[in-house]
């Protein structure tokens, strides 16, 4: 703050320049004017460079280096880290699983959230309290939520197992059937379920925010025109929700793609590698070979950049900030 004040007084030196100089700003004054933005946005830029851009550079560097298991750099490794990565037996499965994971979680989250937003946008007594409950998984740490689900799926006495047993869907509480996270065929669906569960509040609220920007007159006009409810929703509400849906989809894709705590806390990517996504694989490799892990990160990162680029193109962000 004092910096900014100092800059302003520096821009107009005490005593003042002679009147003739006022028509043409002096070089010092021009420099001060060019530097003013830096005083205001400089710290933000600095933080972004240090915390976001620098790691990207280091990560790319590391992906071409040979790193010993103690973390020492042993010189250049060419493309070896990448070829090692692609040669991993698990690699192909991991990539395919990641695509299934992202698409399944995001599509289902969007569909369920559209319905939830419609419900929670209606007026009913106690709406406020109900909306409070809805935000719990958003506020709580994803890690905590994942741990509770792991506990509720525990063989023998996990609450979900107990409830399934009580209604007769599960015969034996101590059988393999009561250990859904131990089998690849049931572990992945449960992980997807938890990922959807924690994504719903944010998505629903984004759609609620989108709904709140649609003026009431639009619905009024549709009603006067005799348009049915479903028809109104499809032809008016959904198109007007497009910006909200675009943003929600993108942020969900990012979150789910980078999601680590759910899988890590519930299965550690096991059994085998059957619940490992590229992000988890990157972390597992980190303990084995930092260079190869960096190569996995670079591949991940390239995908993220492509997704962001697509979004910037789709969203016409420039028109919005101008």
């Amino acid at each position: 703050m004092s910096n900014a004040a100092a800059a302003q007084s520096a821009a107009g030196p005490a005593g003042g320049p002679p009147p003739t100089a006022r028509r043409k700003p002096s070089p010092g004054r021009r420099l001060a004017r060019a530097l003013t933005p830096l005083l205001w946005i400089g710290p933000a830029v600095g933080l972004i460079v240090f915390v976001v851009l620098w790691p990207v550079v280091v990560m790319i560097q590391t992906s071409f280096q040979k790193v010993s298991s103690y973390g020492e750099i042993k010189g250049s490794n060419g493309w070896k880290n990448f070829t090692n990565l692609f040669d991993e037996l698990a690699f192909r499965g991991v990539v395919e699983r990641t695509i299934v994971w992202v698409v399944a979680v995001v599509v289902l989250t969007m569909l369920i959230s559209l319905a939830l937003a419609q419900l929670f946008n209606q007026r009913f007594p106690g709406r406020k309290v109900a909306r409070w409950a809805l935000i719990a998984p958003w506020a709580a740490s994803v890690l905590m939520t994942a741990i509770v689900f792991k506990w509720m799926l525990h063989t023998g006495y996990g609450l979900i197992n107990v409830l399934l047993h009580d209604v007769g869907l599960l015969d034996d509480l101590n059988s393999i059937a009561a250990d859904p996270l131990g089998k690849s065929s049931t572990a992945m669906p449960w992980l997807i379920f938890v990922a959807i569960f924690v994504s719903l509040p944010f998505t629903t609220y984004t759609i609620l925010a989108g709904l709140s920007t649609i003026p009431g007159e639009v619905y009024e006009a549709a009603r006067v025109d005799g348009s049915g409810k479903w028809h109104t929703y499809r032809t008016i509400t959904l198109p007007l929700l497009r910006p909200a849906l675009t943003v929600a989809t993108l942020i969900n894709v990012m979150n789910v793609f980078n999601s680590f705590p759910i899988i890590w806390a519930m299965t550690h990517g096991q059994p085998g590698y059957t619940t490992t996504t590229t992000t988890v694989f990157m972390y597992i490799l980190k303990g084995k070979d930092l260079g190869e892990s960096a190569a996995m990160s670079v591949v991940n990162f390239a995908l993220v950049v492509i997704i962001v680029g697509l979004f910037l193109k789709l969203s016409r962000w420039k028109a919005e900030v101008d």
Partner: protein
Amino acid sequence: MATLTAETHVVTARPAKNGHGRPGWKTVVLAVSAYVIAFLFIFPYLDMFVTSLRPQDELQSTSILPHHYSWSSYSTLWKTGLGTNLKITLMVAGGATVLVLLVATPAAYFTARRKFRGRLAFLLLVLITQMFQPTAMLVGIYREFLNFHLLNSVWALILVNAGFNMAFAIWILNAYFSSIPRELEEAAMVEGTGRLGALFRVTLPLAAPGVVTALVFTFIAAWNEFIVALTLMQTPDKQPLTVAINGFIGAYNIEWQHLFAASVIATIPVIVLFALIERKVVSGLTAGSIK
């Protein structure tokens, strides 16, 4: 700000069908389904709480609710040193929040008020930052802080959390500042307060709801952060709650009731904090990302 009025407008434009009499069956169905869904959403956290109160001998019981409740896991929890982890979490979340406030406010204000060369480039940089997550560049973060000898330092976590959450704060604040008429500031400046005086006496107080929303979001995100802390903080006395709680799982014998007592302590404050700004969330999201 405009979005707030828009929302109330939607609500008033569609009054409940039976304005005066008893609620119609449609409202009842709506309300009941909303309550059921709301219950499902807090269900895991209820089980978290109930488990933390189960006495040791009832942990493996198949009854839905325990027969006895015991607070002992909370009192023994402190003996495991969890207080230190709580302190680290508070330092990281508090530090990141203050840093975001100091860095994001001037940037958001300036980009909202002035057109300058590099403004678009800056906003693009912020937008991109918002998309990135520390998970994607974990190896880079690890090596960078290793080089700076900042592994196991609270400062590293403060910086990373501030850096990755600043973007959202800038968007929200930018939208709030833009919605405050320039004339108000100019009037204050005519009365003899400088630009900074006008910023502090007029603009910031008016933008207070936006500031609070941005800060709460940052605080919660930093409070909940896990993977960077897991990677950078290597000794138990420097680990925040999330990493400490994850450590309970790795133990040979998982002490579930302690695990969940710790989880309750880590979860309740943020849910309450979030509930406090719930009304602002819709307008914040509208301002921050949708427009």
